[in-house]
């Protein structure tokens, strides 16, 4: 915090561009050794660090409209790193990094109490109900930078933290202490065929994300860009994933409003 160089990595997803194709989901699974089962149609036990939800405007044919919204871990900062999940983990198995703003998960420390899952309003945390099993031979594609998780622990999106580490190692070897914007990008950002995801340091004015979102430090990073919003802004979770939409109903679907409350960003 006192360190001026502290990063605050975040993501902004342009929902006008997002086509709901699902490439981000698979890029994430491939990058992070996410396991799969024969039947994944029960979405309540299907591990998808990145999950694309479908929103609808609730109107009837032909006024009906849909919009896709990818939901990674929001890497909530809460107040001073007091994110909903980090504060509740009894075994310090998940942590908020003040250096990067990334909420980490230490699989070997986690003993599977699932309190963090209860705490997360975004359902971004997933439990390994089963031992991960890859069909014979398929374990060959597993990425050595991310350890496969054992049964009985919680996992979630890490903003591809291993990529940050690798980029930092490389920079260090080259005698640099700072990363270029494109040196550290998440797998989903890289894969998105629509280029709908922008990832970078919210604290760095040179980064695209900062320019797009224009976070307001006086209001815990609330976006000044009127097209931008965050999910469940009113809870005070202070997420670092922002969304852009030109459609009013989409922005409104990002949070809860009482019937009499008008549009906009709540209080």
């Amino acid at each position, binding site marked *: 915090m006192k360190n001026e160089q502290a990063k605050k990595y975040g993501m902004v997803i342009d929902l006008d561009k997002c086509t709901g194709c699902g490439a981000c989901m698979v890029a994430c699974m491939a990058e992070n050794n996410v396991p799969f089962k024969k039947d994944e149609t029960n979405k309540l036990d299907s591990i998808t660090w990145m999950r694309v939800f479908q929103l609808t405007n609730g109107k009837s044919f032909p006024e009906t409209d849909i919009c896709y919204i990818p939901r990674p871990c929001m890497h909530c900062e809460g107040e001073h790193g007091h994110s909903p999940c980090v504060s*509740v*983990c009894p075994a310090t198995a998940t942590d908020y990094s003040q250096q990067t703003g990334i909420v980490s998960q230490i699989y070997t420390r986690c003993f599977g*109490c699932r309190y963090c899952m*209860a705490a*997360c*309003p975004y359902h971004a945390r997933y*439990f390994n*109900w089963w031992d991960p099993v890859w069909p014979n031979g398929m374990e060959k594609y597993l990425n050595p930078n991310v350890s496969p998780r054992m049964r009985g622990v919680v996992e979630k999106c890490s903003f591809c933290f291993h990529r940050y580490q690798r980029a930092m190692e490389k920079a260090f070897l080259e005698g640099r202490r700072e990363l270029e914007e494109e040196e550290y990008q998440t797998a989903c950002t890289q894969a998105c065929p629509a280029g709908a995801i922008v990832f970078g340091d919210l604290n760095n004015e040179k980064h695209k994300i900062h320019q797009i979102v224009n976070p307001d430090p006086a209001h815990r990073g609330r976006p000044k860009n009127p097209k931008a919003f965050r999910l*469940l802004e009113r809870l005070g979770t202070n997420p670092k994933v922002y969304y852009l939409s030109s459609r009013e109903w989409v922005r409104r679907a990002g949070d809860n409003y009482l019937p009499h409350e008008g549009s906009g960003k709540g209080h």
Partner: protein
Amino acid sequence: MDDALIPKGVKRCPLPEFLMKLGPVVVVLIWGIVAMFMCWFKGLNQTNMNDSYGFALWIWADLTVIALGGGAFFTGLLRYIIGKDKLKNIINFAVLVGFICYSSALLILAIDIGQPLRGWFIFWHANVHSMLTEVAFCLTCYFGVLTIEYLPLVLENRQVDQVSFFHHLSHNMHEVMPIFAATGAFLSFFHQGSLGGVAGVLFGRPFAFREGILIWPWTFFLFTWSAAAYGPCFTIMLAKITEKITKKKLIKDDVYALLAKISGWMMATYIMAKIIDTWYWAVVTAPSKGQGFMEFYSDNAFYGIWILILEIVVGGVIPAAILITRKGRSTPALLMIAVVLAVIGVSVNRWVMVLQVMAVPVLTFEGWPMYYPSWQEVATTLLPVAYGILLVAFSYRYLPVFPQEAELNPIDLESDETAESVTASETADAKLSPAKA
């Protein structure tokens, strides 16, 4: 056969009959143990929990048995610290019930976690900001206290007592008991409270979240309070059931009345606080997050406003009203109704604070996920019930749990052999199970 072990001055049925009547309980116990090992060896896929229901039946059972086991610390507090001496006649039983509840809670937690072999990380790598850490520490420590409180009773077994060391140990522990009880009350205050805090701190879940003082949400105090209020009701209820089964009067009515009166007033004040809390939450806290009160009770297949009424009115206002009136608590039927309603009330409260919290959608594009437990979850939840019945039965048979029993049920030593044996073995009666479950 086991005469030498049975306390003096009381009568118990023959051992084979005792064991036979416990048969069904043992069957349930074994069923539960099988399910427990399935969960340990195959993992939590044996349950119907899922990523939306990370907390489910087990956590509810945990919260509930601990609330119900609250009779132990509160009675202890009244007996040893406040000096309600009369309660010495029920304290043993209260401690026994508490011991069962807390050991059950720990067992369920050991099944509930995904990596039981690493469960001790909660201590070793403790995150002091987590309510669950507080729960784990206080729960374990307080379980130690309960063991210390229960131990003298075991040492008072006729045979054990004959060992001089144990006799003295028991005696000495009685002497120091107020200190232990005080420590227990201190620990209980925090773990009951932190169990309430578990839900109350979830600021991502407007249904659970409560404001509070410093780091403690209102639910922290409400849980401690409700455990103190409702726990004794459970002790009374179980004692009454034990009396029914043994067909003996075991505790004098004035003891019941005293405990019921205190419990009643605690409950009355608690329920007022709870109503204020609910009102404030409904009109201030939740709406500030954009969620209207009725949103939590509509658009789903199960959770209606009825559950709030059941908890607060049926399980709170009514029993409190009965217990604070002299007529209410001294009429056996009314007393029984009151304690049963109270037990239901506090169980519903814990249910709501665990399962409904999980069910209420927060993201606008998610619905209410529904959940029903798998048989493995049910079996492992019944496991402690069966174990509890066994422990009560054996304790009753071999230990001087009820100091007033001999006085209330004088026996003719001559006719000891032929006396009609009404025994504790009938504790196996199924009536007990739902009350504790």
